[in-house]
């Protein structure tokens, strides 16, 4: 039996065999590339911050109210008919519109609360990132021999 310490190995020959096998069997790399997998870079992450949410909340606030009356259009007869309809249905539509308006306001209030939480957490993350950056700076001064 040969002593393994005395055995040498020709890796280049094995690699040549492997290349032949790849060719003969038609093996191919079907896996998606790392670069194809999207990550959110810092700028993209910043674009999804609380400011964007707050701007949208402000936009939604302009349309919170759901009035029971709405402007009527058309000729005089149509306008008369629509006005009469509004008057006759106000007893049912009115309370619904008030509840809808309140509901919208409550939802926007929730969103504003969430926005405050996000802003607070963003501030904390920014603070932590500063600490991490300082730690990296310290580590990398001594860790760069690979």
């Amino acid at each position, binding site marked *: 039996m040969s002593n*393994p310490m005395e055995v040498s190995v020709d890796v280049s020959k094995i690699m040549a065999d492997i290349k032949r096998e790849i060719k003969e069997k038609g093996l191919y790399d079907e*896996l998606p590339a790392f670069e194809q997998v999207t990550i959110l870079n810092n700028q993209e992450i910043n674009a999804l911050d609380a400011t964007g949410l707050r701007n949208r909340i402000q936009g939604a606030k302009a349309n919170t109210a759901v009035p029971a009356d709405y402007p009527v259009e058309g000729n005089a007869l149509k306008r008369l008919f629509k006005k009469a309809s509004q008057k006759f249905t106000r007893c049912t539509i009115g309370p619904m519109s008030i509840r809808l308006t309140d509901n919208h306001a409550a939802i926007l209030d929730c969103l504003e609360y969430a926005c405050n939480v996000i802003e607070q957490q963003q501030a904390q993350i920014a603070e932590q990132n500063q600490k991490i950056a300082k730690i990296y700076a310290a580590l990398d001064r*001594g860790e760069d021999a690979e």
Partner: protein
Amino acid sequence: MRIVQVLPTLSRGDAVGNNCRAIDGILREEGCDTQIYAGIIDQGVPDGVAKLFSEMGRLEKDDILLYHLAIAFDHDMRNVGGHTIFQYHNVTPPHFFDRYSPFIANACRSGLEEVRSYRDAPEMCWADSDFNKNDLIEMGYTCPIHTIPILVPFEDYEKPADLEVIKRYDDDYVNFIFVGRVVPNKAHEDVIRTFAWYQKHINRRCRLFLVGNASLESYVNHLKRYIKTLGVKNVIFPGHISFNAILAFYRVADIFLCMSQHEGFCVPLLEAMYFHIPIIARDTTAIPYTLGGAGALVEDNDPIKAALMADRIVNDKALRDAIVAGQDRRLADFAHDKIKEQILRELRAFI
């Protein structure tokens, strides 16, 4: 005459810090008057090992300064006196970090600028590998440059391994391992991709241990998303673990797979040799110099070639034994006494 070693940060467990402390140890064994000075001393470093750089003062004419050059340090080493020797550990090219951490990228840029600016400063340089030596020559260094590998304290690897880890993973699965900080230049994505191809086409009963500091969150998150996209199972990031647990992961590993794009030396290659784990590594930067003909080099990041090589090593005991035997022979070149003798020989030139 004193021999002082200076480094920007002395941390517990990193290659530069360990090397610096190992050199300190052999100098003390030889009865030299020696001291380590660091800009920052990590809390994990025992008291008395090093002093702060601010306490150093100017060196005498016959003193020797051994400065560990790895990343920017906000003190000029040209004005401290004594004979100057720089030990170059390499600086990671900044472009690897541009996407994930502009801060680290800038730190690497500053480090490279510092190395370039010091080209006329030292009387002698030590480089961890011939790759690093060539790097210095390309940057215009004209002083004598000697390749002196990192002094690895192999006796530490005889410490007891974490039995829980061994109990959990020592089974019939094929365990792949890569050890190193989870940073982009080490191309963990190529390790994962090779492992994914192996798992999908060759053997489903396998695991991948990616052992190392995983604090660069942006890169780690990208890797995790890639793992999800590939649908690959059993990729394990053990995170911050004890030294005993690292030893245990080495002990249960079957293949050491390194697809790094940039290494200045790569201490984990020596660790894999020490634990008799066959190495498959990408033929790039310092890796072929450290392997010195041992292990199995792959020419690029093609996952099929590396996966098929792993399959052959796992299933062909004679091949595995031959590769490990080659690695054992190579490891002998990094023996403590051999490197110690080389270090002392180079220092004697100044005594």
